[in-house]
């Protein structure tokens, strides 16, 4: 999935920009050599992708603000070259996602983690990670292109906000198919028939994301497998 590649790249950039903005800990004892300045008194700062760069006035003692400014310029350039990196924010703006459990009640609990007590950060991370996964599903769910539809049909056209997908009723005996199916089998049925796209492998990242979104949207409904 493109989203996954985009996220990996973004993480690298953030690390790189961190290095621009403040001094890495390992170099605190020995200050880095001053950047090479050309005769014009300008310095070229290149992003870790080896392509994106900005040229700034060379300063003997750059401040943190200078660094952040450079970082912002680089980031802006990189985002322009990589449209869709804000897909998560875009997706949240466009479509409702039922929020994941926040587990805040577990903060401070010493029992749960390998390393000491559960922190706010842990809880935040769990929530944001699982919601990102579901948002990736929302993106596929709402996009005929992502689904590979040959007739420009996407899931949300019959199931706004994931309505009427009733994931809590699976597995069930699907009378029309004459066999017991899982949610993913019905997703594939819909992709092949009303959507007219290629079926997804059970472990296809898109299938996993779609399942995540559909289950997320049905939060709080009791499981009732086999329900017609």
């Amino acid at each position: 999935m493109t989203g996954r590649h985009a996220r990996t790249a973004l993480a690298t950039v953030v690390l790189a920009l961190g290095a621009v903005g403040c001094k890495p800990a390992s170099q605190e004892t020995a200050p880095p050599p001053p950047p090479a300045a050309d005769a014009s008194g300008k310095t070229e700062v290149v992003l870790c992708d080896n392509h994106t760069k900005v040229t700034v006035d060379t300063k003997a003692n750059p401040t943190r603000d200078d660094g952040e400014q450079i970082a912002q310029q680089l980031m802006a350039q990189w985002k322009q070259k990589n449209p869709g990196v804000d897909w998560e924010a875009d997706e949240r703006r466009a479509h409702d996602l039922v929020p994941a459990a926040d587990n805040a009640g577990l903060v401070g609990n010493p029992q749960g983690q390998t390393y000491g007590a559960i922190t706010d950060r842990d809880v935040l991370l769990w929530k944001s990670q699982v919601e990102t996964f579901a948002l990736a599903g929302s993106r596929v769910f709402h996009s005929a292109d992502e689904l590979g539809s040959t007739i420009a049909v996407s899931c949300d056209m019959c199931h706004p906000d994931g309505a009427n997908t009733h994931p809590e009723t699976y597995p069930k005996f699907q009378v029309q198919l004459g066999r017991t199916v899982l949610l993913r089998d019905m997703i594939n049925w819909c992709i092949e028939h009303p959507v007219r796209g290629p079926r997804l492998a059970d472990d296809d990242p898109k299938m996993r994301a779609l399942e995540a979104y559909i289950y997320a949207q049905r939060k709080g409904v009791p499981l009732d497998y086999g329900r017609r």
Partner: protein
Amino acid sequence: MKSIETKYMEERERTLRGLAGLSRRDFLKVSTAAVGATALHGVFNPHSFQPVDVASAATVDPAGKVEPFRFAYISDSHLYSKDLNDRFVNGLMRAVDDVNALDPQPDFVFYGGDLAQLGQPQELELGAQILKNLKAPVRMMVGEHDWYLDLGEKWRSLFGDDRYTFEHKGVQFVTLNSVIEEDFWTERNLSPMERMKTVAGLDNHGQRPFTVGAEQRAWLAQQLEKVPSDKPLIVFSHSPLYKIYKNWNFWTDDAEEVQAILKRFANVVVIHGHTHQVLTNRIGNIHFHGLLSTAWPWPYAPQGLPPLTVQMGRPDPFNPNDGCGDGMVQVHADGLVDKVYALWNRNPVTVSRRYTLSGGKEDRPAAPLLASF
């Protein structure tokens, strides 16, 4: 051993043959006979094919000013261009065939909006071309899918004004453009297609709620100024003209203001598209009816469903046309209507004048076998 399908088709064939040239009294006999025949199969399925008395007898109101008549409707076809998507094109063509097969022909055919999916010229032109095959005259209404690519330019060039009034057999008709959204696109610098796609997503929150708008409300008030309060009024609106569920724009933000304009009339019927389902409501003197889509059914909204609505059955995803259809409106002498939802592959559902008038106490439509989850 015959399959269920074969039995169904045989039963249907028998019933249809029996129906030809029946009087109303005989109709009831056949009706009973068909139920008996079904029972003979051993399994009584109340949703098997049985003749249904579809608004055959218009009530006679001696004080009525209206000569009873009927009109047909088709709505929400959401056409893409023909080479991209044949599915929705077939849906609209099926509806046109349905309406053309009506005998006698309806007085006119009302198109409930969302002819196109993304408001593109080729989509609207294709729709116009297919609708030209209708034998009866067509009254067009605009939907948000027709509007937000070029803000109605192409639609108006094909079909004329997006709001108009007309009079038919004693009923005052008003067609509104009720899909007006506040400008959300300029600030975000959206292209026309981005704007269109934002509005086209039912669950897309990048847009604003539908309105009729102050300017059009003033127009409406002015149009109705000289219409006497006892004259029956039928209003066509793409959005429901009441509030069901804001997240899906099953909603008109200035609904109360519009209703206030309609309040002084004795009998008002609002026929609206957009919701793709059997939907019934009544607010005082105003009786609301939804329209079926020829493209796909929407689920019922999780909130705000009017208590008067008897839901249609849960559509079967294995039948691409289930939950879709077209239908008819029988206008009675007092201007109130029997609303017929001609669901494809299912028995038609009639939401009668008596049902809405009695506040749901009389003539209740049959409950669905499988309700929504």
